[in-house]
């Protein structure tokens, strides 16, 4: 009984849903502030300490706004899509190790579930875009799915190489492997890390791959018709997506939440969370600096780039891993 309550609390509060939402909103602030500084601006400043509460204000405001469902939209789908998007990302977060080597939910093959959940997010975007019955939304939804077809294959190859090294399709096991050997996988998966950063940019739809919601081209893409709570859901889902993406990358290549710890139970866990935050923030900063210093690709260029360069590179990565295994390096 007590175990069940503790598990529910873990899922709902720490390190589960609430923690994920708060951390995701803080990361949005980090990203916005960092980008503003690259652009020689200040960024959010007056909401809380250096504007740290800005994303919270945005979300609460959107929450309290009128919720419009366009007359011509498919009401059921239009309502389901935002929830589906947020839910898929929050579930993904439970699979990522944060407080210890093992995540809250871990089983053999959870990496595949992560990949599937990212597709669910895309499906939510597609449903949202197509059901709102707006031309820009439809184009945005179409682009979002096309782009997903482009980056998913190389990303899965990179996941496969990591899984091959650790001999397990479980994210927690991969982290455990890195702890055991003491070498983060980035040592072997240099190319994979680059591919994963680029695919991550496409996954979270940021410049240069913010094609599905390109503001100057198609207003806000599949988000155009959403307002109020539904937009807040998507906004939040977008932030959690950034956290999840950074978390997966940190777990795969940088050893997740692991680092030197003294071995005292509670102190260990606090240190793990701090290591997790440091590693993911570094990834967020890398993403933000790429985002700030490039222009947006066209959908054709993006997809052909993924197929022409990233897919062969990811296969090369896989081959390198095979070779390393063959010669007994890993």
């Amino acid at each position, binding site marked *: 009984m007590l175990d069940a309550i503790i598990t529910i609390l873990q899922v709902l509060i720490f390190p589960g849903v609430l923690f994920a939402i708060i951390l995701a909103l803080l990361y949005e602030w980090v990203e916005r502030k960092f980008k503003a500084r*690259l652009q020689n601006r200040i960024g959010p400043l007056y909401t809380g300490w250096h504007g740290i509460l800005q994303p919270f204000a945005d979300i609460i405001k959107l929450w309290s706004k009128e919720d419009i469902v366009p007359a011509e939209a498919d009401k059921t789908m239009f309502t389901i899509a935002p929830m589906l998007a947020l839910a898929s990302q929050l579930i993904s977060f439970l699979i990522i190790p944060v407080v210890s080597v093992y995540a809250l939910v871990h089983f053999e093959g959870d990496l595949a579930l992560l990949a599937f959940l990212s597709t669910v997010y895309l499906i939510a975007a597609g449903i949202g875009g197509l059901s709102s019955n707006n031309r820009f939304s439809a184009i945005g939804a179409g682009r979002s799915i096309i782009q997903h077809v482009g980056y998913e294959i190389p990303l899965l190859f990179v996941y496969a190489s990591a899984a091959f090294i650790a001999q397990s399709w479980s994210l927690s096991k991969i982290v455990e492997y890195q702890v055991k050997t003491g070498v983060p996988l980035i040592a072997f998966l240099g190319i994979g890390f680059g591919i994963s950063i680029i695919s991550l940019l496409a996954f979270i739809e940021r410049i240069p791959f913010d094609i599905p919601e390109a503001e100057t081209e198609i207003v806000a893409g599949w988000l155009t018709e959403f307002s109020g709570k539904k937009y807040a859901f998507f906004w939040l889902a977008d932030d959690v997506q950034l956290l999840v993406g950074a978390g997966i990358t940190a777990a795969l290549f940088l050893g997740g939440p692991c680092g030197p710890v003294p071995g005292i139970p509670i102190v260990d866990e606090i240190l793990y969370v701090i290591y997790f935050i440091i590693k993911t923030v570094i990834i967020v900063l890398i993403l933000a600096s790429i985002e700030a210093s490039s222009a947006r690709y066209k959908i054709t260029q993006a997809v052909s780039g993924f197929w022409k360069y990233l897919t062969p590179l990811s296969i090369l990565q896989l081959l390198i891993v095979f070779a390393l295994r063959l010669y007994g390096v890993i």
Partner: protein
Amino acid sequence: MPRVLAFLKDFLKNLSKKPATIKYPFEPPSQLPEGFRGKISIDYNKCVGCGLCARVCPAFAIEMVQVGFREVSGKKIPVRKPRVDVGKCLFCAQCAEVCPAKAITLTKKFELASEKKEDLIVQP
């Protein structure tokens, strides 16, 4: 040969630089040069009521309104003074230029936002 992320180096330099932002309204605005054309101000003591400003105003912002009477050799002549609607004003300073009594000047006041249009009228 195209370069990837060619601008990044320069952008990263901005991190150590002070932001170009001026924290208005908590700091004074960047610069307000001499001769800035802001809200109109009329010295009604100097004004002779000739109405030239109302005639040249391209936006019909200046209207001559009657404020009283003046006696000239036993006859009552109405005295007119300009009334300016800043909500229509273009801040071109043409009125200040033609004013023979130099009664009209353009101040440096630029924070003119108001909730009601009536607040924007300069009455004699």
